[in-house]
């Protein structure tokens, strides 16, 4: 049963130090508002899971929330590097960051296996790649019928998955529209799910086959208008491409990042 609560209470009750947390959204509907609340509540030692740790994880990593990162592509899309991510990996600042690295196909399959309550996923992956040499969680598995050897990875089962969606109804049924990414699988694979939405409506007016999460698989729904900014919410607002470009400068030095964080995330704590 999804409770409709405020974001501060939802983060306080659902996300704990040391949790495995997936904040998903594939360039669309990235849950920035929730991530900022996690930073304000000073969560520590999180294992952050995300296919594309872009600005949202650069911020969480730079703010010192993360101990470990499970990911498949870490960059500022169309712009360049994630400087806070690189500073953590290359110089242990603000703290060392363990990295567990996969491919997109691997992580997408691992979320599907998690949603399906299977311990592992089977796919055709990594042929000729060096990655399996450095990641013991990528192993061979043989077909019991043909003997063909395929790739297996453990399923992803986060303690908490956090996503942003366009709308929820008053019961807490959640509607996602447009680019879907892996959000549905990430929610169903997790023990708890926190969903921020642009608005609560009386009637979702959803197509029968729309991507809808029933209220009883969601732990909490929070209203967070523009909660995906600087990413976008299809049907609500556009991607703020200028901010993605500006981030390259903001995150380049520890000082400029800290200043930005103080002014744009932490000071809201007072509010």
């Amino acid at each position, binding site marked *: 049963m999804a409770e409709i609560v405020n974001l501060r209470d939802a983060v306080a009750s659902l996300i704990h130090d040391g949790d495995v947390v997936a904040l998903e959204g594939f360039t669309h509907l990235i849950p920035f508002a929730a991530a900022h609340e996690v930073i304000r509540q000073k969560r520590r030692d999180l294992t952050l899971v995300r296919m594309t740790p872009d600005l949202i994880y650069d911020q969480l990593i730079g703010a010192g929330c993360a101990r470990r990162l499970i990911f498949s*592509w870490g960059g500022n899309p169309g712009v360049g590097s994630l400087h806070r991510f690189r500073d953590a990996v290359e110089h242990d600042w603000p703290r060392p960051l363990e990295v567990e690295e996969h491919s997109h196909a691997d992580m997408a399959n691992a979320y599907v296996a998690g949603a399906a309550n299977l311990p592992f996923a089977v796919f055709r992956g990594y042929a000729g790649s060096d*990655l399996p040499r450095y990641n013991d969680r990528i192993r061979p598995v043989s077909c019991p019928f043909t003997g063909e050897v395929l790739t297996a990875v453990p399923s992803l089962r986060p303690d908490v998955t956090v996503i942003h969606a366009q709308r929820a109804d008053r019961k807490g049924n959640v509607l996602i529209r447009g680019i879907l990414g892996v959000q549905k699988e990430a929610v169903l694979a997790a023990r708890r799910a926190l969903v921020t939405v642009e608005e609560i409506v009386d009637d979702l007016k959803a197509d029968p086959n729309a991507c809808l999460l029933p209220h009883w698989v969601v732990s909490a729904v929070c209203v967070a208008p523009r909660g995906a900014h600087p990413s*976008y919410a299809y049907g609500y607002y556009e991607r703020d491409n200028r901010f993605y470009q500006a981030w390259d400068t903001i995150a380049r030095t520890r000082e400029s990042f800290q200043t930005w964080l103080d002014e744009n995330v932490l000071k809201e704590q007072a509010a």
Partner: protein
Amino acid sequence: MTRLTTEIAYTTTEMMTVAAARRLMDRAVCFVGIGLPSTAANLARLTHAPAIVLIYESGPIGAKPGVLPLSIGDGELADTADTVVSTAEIFRYWLQGERIDVGFLGAAQVDRFGNINTTVIGPYEHPVVRLPGAGGAPEIAGLAKEVLIVLEQSKRTFVAKVDFITSAGYLNGGEDRARLKLPGKGPVAIITDLCIMEPEPVSNEFVVTNLHAGITRARVEEATGWKIRFAEGMKETPEPTDRELSVLRDLHQRTAVAHGRAD
């Protein structure tokens, strides 16, 4: 660097984009990454390949963006696609399902056998430079029927051996890739701002098969980290046509306006 044609000047990046677009057949199903591959694929769609099918890893199938996406999941892709499926479905039913004819890949490093590194410069545990990582590339490299590699050429990026194989080309060359019995042929061309390289029969070492108009062999040698060879019967890449250039520039112009920035 720009040079003067009978009518209009063009940049080497424009030459690279046009050369990449020309490799795409009409009706081909193309798995498109962000940036130059997306630009080239859409240039092809707006010129000689109107029925090309563009698939982006974020979920859009049959996208026909009017302006170039800055991210792999821009709303413009959802608006113009025939359908939008989950990212998991893209990798499971469409890429692994062997429905992709051409996969486009960029690289931070590429070597003489077309192996791609987008993971680290230096040792994996203590990288000198931490790169973005694999993304969709390892499976695109293995499962797309053909791969096109597109990137600007320099001694830094074109190395004899990559520090880390993120995505397989021909590995150590010769039959090395064939032993993996992959559905995908591997990289059939590397398209740069200077030339087009293709794997030499038998050795599968990349050699220059097309030199872009006005580029010298010396210039290519200076920009390659191994002793690059030039194929017998190497041709000159035809310059961009006026149509190719005007469509490409209109596309960039529309994109700049839509994204609220000057390119």
